[in-house]
């Protein structure tokens, strides 16, 4: 047929050989396949669920949960709903991820920099740390900290004791809890005022440095204002706060703040594991900064610390940020391993206990996946924005 067309003098390709038409057909087919696939799955799920008499829908979220949770950041007891267990689990996930990210970043930067240290021993030590911890499954590390180390801790009655206010035992770490009294609001105002003053100082300092070239040490005065101002206000207003000390009552310590061992083990494992990866990210970031920069900084007479803080790290950050974001996301997703040791995170509480009490697997698993997906996509969107902002602006 193509020949015939050619004979008629129209050098036209037949329509199925036309890349544009082909691509349209191909895409329509692909959409069709995807739609058909989802229809098939949804249809199956609905028929199967109906045939087996499984309840569907989200009405269960308003039913009473009827079980307790060991660590809740918002008020919760047995009379709250399943919907509330979702919130409780979500907040616990956010808590452990947030703490984990901060700790892992600090540890990771220390080890990453230590790995590049001129001190041979320190550098090797950092290398050994990285090679050991990133090559052992995280779940195993969590088990180790929880089941192997937990056994070695003392019982509540033989707790390690620090000044009769901090206690450490197999049930967790107990600390005094500051309880605000009436009039504590003034102190909050003072804290905000201090922050405002510091921001002003930083701005002024930058301007002065640009115009006169003179620098002014900022760190210690800022720290002084941040701590001093609220403290002065606190004492002037008559110390409107007291500490509630933990005390051994019956089986366990009551009152005060508690960090449960599940949280400690999870946090420890997440931090140590992720720090090994962050250290590698930091190292490659620093190595990406040309050596000339260090030499130039040395030539200008900057100290080691200044060189790292003012020259190397700001430039390395551009290389570090994208993989660092990945590590943060990994840590957040890895926090779902909490379910293995019973830390009440989203997967453990909601996709675990709640799922089992209600039996509505489809709804619950999709809600859980949705949360992680949202967290992931938001974080990467934020990081992309930040990345664009600090990207090297070239001619």
């Amino acid at each position: 047929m193509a020949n015939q067309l050619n004979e008629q003098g129209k050098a036209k390709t037949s329509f199925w050989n036309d890349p544009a038409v082909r691509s349209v057909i191909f895409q329509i087919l692909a959409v069709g396949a995807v739609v058909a696939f989802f229809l098939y799955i949804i249809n199956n799920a609905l028929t199967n669920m109906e045939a087996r008499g499984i309840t569907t829908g989200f009405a269960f979220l308003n039913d009473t949960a009827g079980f307790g949770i060991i660590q809740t950041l918002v008020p919760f007891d047995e009379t709250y709903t399943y919907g509330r267990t979702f919130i409780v689990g979500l907040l616990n996930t956010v808590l452990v991820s947030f703490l984990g990210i901060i700790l892992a970043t600090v540890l990771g930067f220390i080890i990453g920099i230590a790995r590049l240290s001129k001190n041979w021993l320190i550098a090797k030590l950092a290398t050994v740390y990285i090679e050991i911890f990133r090559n052992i499954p995280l779940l195993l590390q969590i088990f180790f900290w929880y089941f192997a180390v937990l056994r070695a801790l003392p019982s509540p009655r033989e707790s390690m004791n620090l000044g009769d206010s901090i206690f450490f035992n197999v049930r967790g770490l107990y600390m005094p809890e500051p309880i605000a009294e009436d009039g504590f609001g003034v102190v909050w105002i003072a804290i905000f005022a201090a922050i405002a003053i510091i921001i002003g100082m930083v701005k002024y300092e930058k301007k002065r440095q640009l115009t006169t070239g003179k620098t002014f040490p900022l760190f210690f005065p800022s720290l002084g204002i941040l701590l001093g101002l609220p403290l002065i206000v606190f004492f002037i207003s008559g110390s409107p706060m007291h500490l509630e000390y933990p005390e051994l009552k019956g089986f366990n310590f009551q009152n005060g703040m508690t960090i449960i061992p599940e949280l400690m083990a999870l946090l420890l494992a997440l931090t140590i594991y992720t720090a090994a990866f962050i250290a590698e990210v930091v190292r490659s970031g620093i190595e990406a900064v040309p050596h000339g920069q260090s030499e130039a900084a040395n030539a200008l007479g900057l100290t080691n610390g200044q060189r790292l803080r003012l020259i190397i790290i700001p430039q390395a950050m551009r290389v570090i940020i994208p993989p660092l974001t990945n590590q943060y996301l990994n840590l957040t997703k890895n926090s779902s391993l909490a379910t293995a040791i019973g830390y009440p995170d989203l997967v453990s509480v909601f996709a675990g206990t709640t799922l089992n009490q209600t039996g509505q697997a489809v709804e619950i698993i999709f809600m859980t996946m949705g949360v992680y997906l949202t967290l992931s996509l938001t974080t990467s969107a934020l990081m992309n924005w930040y990345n664009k902002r600090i990207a090297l602006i070239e001619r």
Partner: protein
Amino acid sequence: MSEFKPLPDQPPPPNTIGAVGWMRAHLFTGPINSVLTVAAAFLILFGISWFINWGLFDADFVGSTRDDCSGEGACWVFIIARLSQFIYGFFPEEQIWRINVMFFIFAACIIALMIEKTPKKGWISLFTLVGFPIISFYLLNGGIFGLEEVETHKWGGLTLTLVIAIVGIVASLPIGILLALGRRSDMPVIRSISIVYIEFWRGVPLITVLFMASVMLPLFMSAGAETDKLMRAMIGVIMFQSAYMAEVVRGGLQAIPKGQTEAAQALGLSYWKTMFLIILPQALKLMIPGIVNTFIALFKDTSLVLIIGLFDLLAIVQSALNDPNWLGFSVEGYIFVAFMFWIFCFGMSRYSQALERKLNTSHR
């Protein structure tokens, strides 16, 4: 006029050469460094000597029950007594030779691939990727050639860990390639589908994927189709892993200069021919370190299957720790598992680094 005679070189100052010089340059450059060095050295000596004493000199190796352990050092008797279960799972004892055969073929393939001068490497890698999984499936599962059928729920231990990891990587590679091609396609629909797929699986934790595969997959299939638990876990792992693999492949594709595609098109090659004859062979070479790295990640992640009740290496050791006859040896058990995983992962990461270096130089 006398001939010019250069003075003989002075030896460098004694404190800059030899052991002393090395130490001054690398360990004691300043007061802070010196303190750090001493502290680190103390820590290392103390830690290592304690560990060696605990794990070697005070440890017990011979015996069959916990009474053979003195309790001063590690009790490796526990590991040795259970070793066969840790490696072969609940596989029937008289059939264990089949697993050994599988291990042997696998080791032979890997060694052949690692040695540089092996002839016909292409065929060997094809066999490792395609032939080997099929052979090992029949070896493990049986049911043909008069081999007794061994149901998947009897698979366990290190064997299961390796099975899941290898199937995961082998199956996710082709899917990953397709997804990566899709993500770089000119067709907006194909591109969006690939992006959604990749971002979805990369955005959720593996454990929810496994949970979904384990309890929800059967609901999604038409009445009648039913797969076993291991199969479903594998499907979950493959879906998850192919998204990560797609990103590795995409990285490899991006490294190939656009001129290659253009040249291929100029020669009149179709899209698929361009990809499979020109682009992918070059890109695959660049991707090998990335693939090995995802494999390491997957290998570690296989331990998560214990949460859905499969007995991988970690799960089987964990359950042995609960044996009333062997209570209290969790440290030994965990160190054993850690060591096994570490050997595999560290070996592979070293291999991938060496490969990276080799490929790097050949490209300059």
